[in-house]
């Protein structure tokens, strides 16, 4: 029978572990934003080698499963002599992986802007820098907010994979909990509930932003 006692008791430790899930996803998307913006800039640059490099970056990171990326990164660190805490390694991997998707989100948003906007800005004599910082980027950022929230939801789910390299986030904590209580069904369903709760909140935030920015 489904034991509600175990089910409710597992929420305490799992909520505690949810800090790490949130930490990894939020820092991951932060790092992804920074790298992703650079990659997107490289992708749109007039220099062919930069464009090539960015294209390969995106295609590799989107073509290789995150779990394999995590393992490669995890095993590379000791070889190049870097001794960083597993949490840092996880954040960096998740961030690098997210950067590929985020650069594509930026690219899509920039491409979606009407060409007339740039033309008008140039026509009234704005210099290229102002065109970017005052016309293109503010609009592109607003346009892509819902997509970025979506990416964050994907990262919250993807962060379950870092349990494999031993970080005590929700999934890993639920594995430990399942092992001590011998009730995997209840514990894993509780874990699923917490993920669902986080993601429903994020989805609501996404809808709110979409509603607010849709003028």
């Amino acid at each position: 029978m489904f034991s509600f006692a175990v089910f409710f008791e597992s929420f305490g430790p799992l909520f505690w572990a949810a800090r790490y899930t949130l930490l990894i996803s939020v820092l991951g998307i932060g790092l992804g934003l920074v790298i992703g913006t650079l990659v997107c800039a490289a992708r749109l640059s007039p220099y062919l080698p930069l464009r090539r490099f960015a294209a390969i970056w995106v295609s590799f990171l989107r073509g290789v499963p995150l779990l394999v990326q995590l393992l490669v990164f995890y095993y590379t660190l000791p070889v190049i002599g870097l001794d960083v805490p597993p949490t840092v390694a996880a954040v960096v991997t998740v961030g690098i992986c997210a950067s590929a998707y985020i650069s594509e989100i930026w690219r899509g948003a920039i491409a979606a802007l009407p060409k007339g906007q740039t033309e008008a800005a140039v026509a009234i004599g704005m210099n290229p820098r102002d065109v970017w910082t005052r016309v293109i980027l503010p609009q592109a950022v607003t346009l892509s907010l819902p997509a970025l929230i979506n990416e964050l939801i994907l990262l919250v789910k993807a962060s379950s994979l870092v349990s494999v390299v031993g970080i005590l986030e929700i999934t890993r904590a639920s594995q430990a909990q399942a092992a001590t209580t011998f009730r995997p069904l209840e514990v894993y369903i509780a874990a699923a509930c917490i993920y669902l709760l986080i993601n429903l909140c994020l989805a609501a935030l996404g809808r709110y932003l979409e509603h607010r920015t849709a003028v």
Partner: protein
Amino acid sequence: MEWSILQQYGPSLLKGFGNTILCWALGTVFGMALGLVIALIQRYAPRWVTWIVQAYIEVIRGTPFLVQLFVLYYGGPLVGLRLDALPAGLLGLTIYGSPYFAEIFRSGFRAVPHGQIEAARAIGMSELNIVRRILLPLGLVSALPALVNFSIILTKETVILSIITVPELLYQVQRMSTETFRYLEANLVLALFFWGLVEAISRVGHRLEARITKHLVERT
């Protein structure tokens, strides 16, 4: 990497690759089928049924695939669902993919011009025939690019099955690397392999897509 290692582990790697392809192909086909059923239910079933289906979609899309697999594989036996790793993985992949496929079909159906369906109704086609001859053929064509894309995403999800010990490619690679202590090389080669695989599948998929939707382009 020495050749003797490849010789020794070649067969198990090949078997792992076979399992990866098997899981991917069957998971995609079953997931698509279940997704199509869900999309049709949402279109035709009474309100309260669509609510249940919508809840299913939200739950599956809001939780990580890995946790779903854990519930199924480790929690399943507690309610009498005792599955081996491979069938559990297949079932998991099917369940995981179905809501995404359902949403793709749903927006494909929405892209079918309403006039087509009204016209079919006006000339007295039965509802079943409308689905079979109008909704499916037209909706599937417009859903095709998204279907191809999501099938490619599923290729990458198959590696997660290794965590519940489905003997697919990553599982075999990990077994090999714990025996030979070549963790980095093995995983790096696996990453490159997947990169090539996903690129190849997406090339083929997009060519197929272009071929099937050729009649749409020519007319404009």
